[in-house]
């Protein structure tokens, strides 16, 4: 698959950056002329992934979050959200709806929401090393004639 365009972003794991991260990725995706639903899907999925980094990857400290958004041929959009935080012991369990390690007000639905709003999601993680979440979404053909 040939990448057509790419954007890289590095932010600190501060919750105030959640809105910036999802808006930045959505703004980059705008060149594909997605519809409003598709933009909301991307914003929501990115928001979940970035929140996971802030809440889980770096629970006690502020670390770096690396976001790469890539546009491929055929309107395929891929976002990689990478941290060097604590990692996930059991990925399968972490992805189960309603499972959460943080208690409080986290609903345990972050991965479920990412799965429902993206076509594909991949999670790579090593305890103590960090986690990478890859989100993929193929945008509908609306506006394709303008490419």
């Amino acid at each position: 698959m040939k990448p057509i365009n790419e954007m890289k972003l590095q932010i600190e794991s501060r919750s105030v950056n959640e809105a910036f991260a999802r808006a930045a990725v959505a703004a980059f995706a705008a060149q594909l002329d997605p519809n409003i639903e598709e933009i909301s899907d991307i914003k929501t999925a990115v928001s979940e992934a970035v929140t996971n980094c802030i809440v889980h990857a770096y629970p006690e400290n502020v670390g770096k979050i690396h976001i790469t958004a890539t546009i491929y041929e055929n309107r395929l959009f891929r976002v990689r959200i990478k941290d060097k935080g604590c990692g996930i012991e059991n990925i399968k369990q972490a992805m189960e709806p309603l499972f959460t390690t943080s208690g409080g007000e986290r609903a345990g639905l972050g991965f479920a929401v990412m799965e429902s709003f993206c076509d594909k999601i991949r999670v790579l993680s090593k305890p103590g090393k960090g986690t990478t979440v890859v989100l993929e979404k193929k945008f509908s053909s609306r506006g394709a004639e303008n490419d």
Partner: protein
Amino acid sequence: MAIRITAEPMRLTIELTGEIDHHNAAVFRLEADEAIQSSLTPTVRLDFGDVTFMDSSGIGFVLGRYKIVESYGGNVEVINLSGRLYSMMQLAGLEKLVTLKRKRK
């Protein structure tokens, strides 16, 4: 983002505006809980009509308020939901705990 609170004898209405994410939910939570705990009305209505974005933190927000209101025997209504927010809350199974109402077109 802002929160508007209207207190009536039997019902407290909490209107949320703007984006609900993990960062903003903390502020919404603080203000909402203060109003709920000082009034303890039988019905607490959460108005999502002016919410422009929500991730799963919005679901956590509703769940958290439900737990408080349920603890004193009250009930929670979530109103003015867009189609998108309605389906997210359904995905989370919230309709078993609270009343979900869509936005009128």
